[in-house]
């Protein structure tokens, strides 16, 4: 498996996001591209990232190659990547060789770990409401609500998306709509569900990799966040509704 990306920051942010959910991850590469993700240890969230081969400047893979990496090791190696740095991943004899090309070249050799290949649970849900927005809008909303409580209520009312948090001192509420210009698209019926705010906050690092996020949910249904990636790639994060 070998791939080279021109935007090291973007790849690093994807890996950091996955690292927020799980300590280790399996990377599966095929001729079509790269897929990584799995269920978080508390089994509340499922992450599924698909990066097509066209995303990369160079991409080489066998029919199907599977490797396991300890995310802490890789994230540490990538902690100082800059905007114009390039990044190469290359697997060789049980090791991952990682090269960052920028003002100067930095190389890291990281041992691979043996992991079971995750089974794709095939989540197929009919969501009551869908809304598309800039990832920056989504992050800003979460930033406003982040210190207000532990659970976030996501609801839709007459085409508007309402995200609110009830804390010890009161309720904070953010209303987004196409009319107000902060949703790119919105459609569906009224619905409402509660999710753990800390799980939503784990996704904010995707801001550096994705410009647009689609949010899908329904009453007592998981929340699906689809972060759009270039070349029709995506990062899906499913978060289970919270039973209070």
């Amino acid at each position: 498996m070998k791939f080279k990306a021109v935007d090291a920051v973007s790849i690093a942010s994807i890996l950091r996001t996955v690292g927020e959910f799980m300590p280790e991850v399996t990377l599966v590469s095929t001729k079509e591209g790269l897929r990584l993700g799995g269920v978080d240890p508390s089994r509340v969230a499922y992450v599924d990232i698909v990066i097509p081969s066209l995303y990369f400047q160079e991409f080489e893979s066998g029919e199907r190659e599977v490797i396991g990496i300890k995310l802490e090791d890789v994230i540490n190696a990538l902690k100082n990547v800059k905007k114009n740095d390039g990044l190469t991943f290359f697997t060789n004899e049980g090791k991952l060789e990682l090269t960052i090309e920028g003002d100067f070249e930095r190389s890291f050799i990281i041992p691979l770990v043996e992991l079971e290949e995750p089974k794709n649970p095939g989540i197929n849900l009919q969501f009551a409401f869908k809304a598309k927005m800039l990832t920056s809008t989504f992050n800003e909303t979460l930033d406003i609500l982040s210190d207000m409580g532990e659970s976030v209520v996501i609801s839709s009312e007459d085409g508007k998306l309402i995200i609110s948090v009830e804390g010890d001192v009161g309720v904070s509420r953010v209303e987004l709509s196409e009319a107000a210009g902060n949703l790119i698209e919105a459609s569906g019926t009224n619905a409402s569900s509660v999710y753990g705010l800390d799980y939503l906050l784990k996704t904010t690092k995707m801001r550096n990799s994705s410009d647009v996020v689609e949010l899908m949910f329904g009453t007592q249904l998981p929340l699906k966040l689809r972060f759009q990636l270039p070349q029709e790639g995506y990062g899906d994060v499913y978060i289970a509704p919270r039973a209070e």
Partner: protein
Amino acid sequence: MKVDPGTCLRCRATKYLCGLTYCPVTVKMSILNMRAGIYEELSGSSPPSVFVGRFNYPKVAVYPSAPPLGGDTSRYEDPKLWISMSLDEFLAMRLSVFRGGQSFRVEQASDPSRDLWDVQTLALSPRPVEVEMKFKEPPKTMNVIDDTLPPLGPSAPLDKLRLGTIPPPEKVVEKVFSSQDMKAIEGMRLLYTSGVGVERISRILSVGGMGVDRKLVPTRWSITAVDKTLSDQLVKELKEFDILDNVEVYVREHLRNLFVAMLIPGNWSFEWGEAWFPRTAWNYWGGEVAVEIDHEGYSGRKTYPEIGGCYYASRLAVAEHLVKRRRQATVVLWRETYPGFFFPVGVWFVRENVRKLLEGRPETFDTVWEAVEYLSSRLKVSRDWTRKSWILNLMRSRLF
């Protein structure tokens, strides 16, 4: 708190009719006996005991301490023995530990004066040390009663400390103390894996006896620092182990406290909860049971738990248990404190009780909900726990 004198007449320290977990009359008499004749000098055997205060940080008071008794006083600093004592005996003992205080800036630990050096040397000792303390004035009855610290007796400014023969510390203690390039975190771990108790490790840390940039650390902070550092390492280890097979439930009652543990098959996450009934230490004037819970997921937490040092003391005890068994689990620990548990005695009480709790034989269940059903007859605020528990809510909220 007022006790009807008629109650004492009928009880005479035999039945605890006042509802407390100790007899105030017995404790007071024992303390008065021990304190009789202590004016400006004290000759005794330090267990060893050193207390570092936190007020006026970074210029803090350091108190070498001792009871007015010679011989083997190690039980004064041994929580493993305290846990099997009556509260009468424990309080009478701890409140007769006299403290002689001197002020130092915390940085002085790295280049100590003779006075501070003596205190550091005392703190390293593995066994009691004969001491003579000359006070500047008679000790005042200012007892230290704190949620984190074990109780301590009267104090006075110290004029002079004279130490008897000091037993040499173990080689590993000497190594940690003399290594100027060993980080405190490494020192704590080395001492712990060499069998040095957590109380001694926190005492050595508090007198600035380890680390690269040495400082005095208030005892209250050093206790929690040690519990956290050691449990962090153990939690990291236990995440490598296989997951437990069944739900295990442990229950222990001790001195009007009920401790409950549920070890649930799953990846590591942890919750510590406390329910304080009205007329207990932290809910004395309350009208309802006060339930507080703090938690962490698999990746740990980034903020200090509001519930305080008990969180890390209990986390250490359960992490020790799981590492010893080479198993990983999702852990729920709850404590109910009933009326009569009148004042806080320190986080050792939680650490040692959870250790004892997990030494017991568990009831096993196939599902967490069967375990919760079983516990509903043992817990007095069962509904509050199941409603507020972060882990039980997490269990209900899983994707798969």
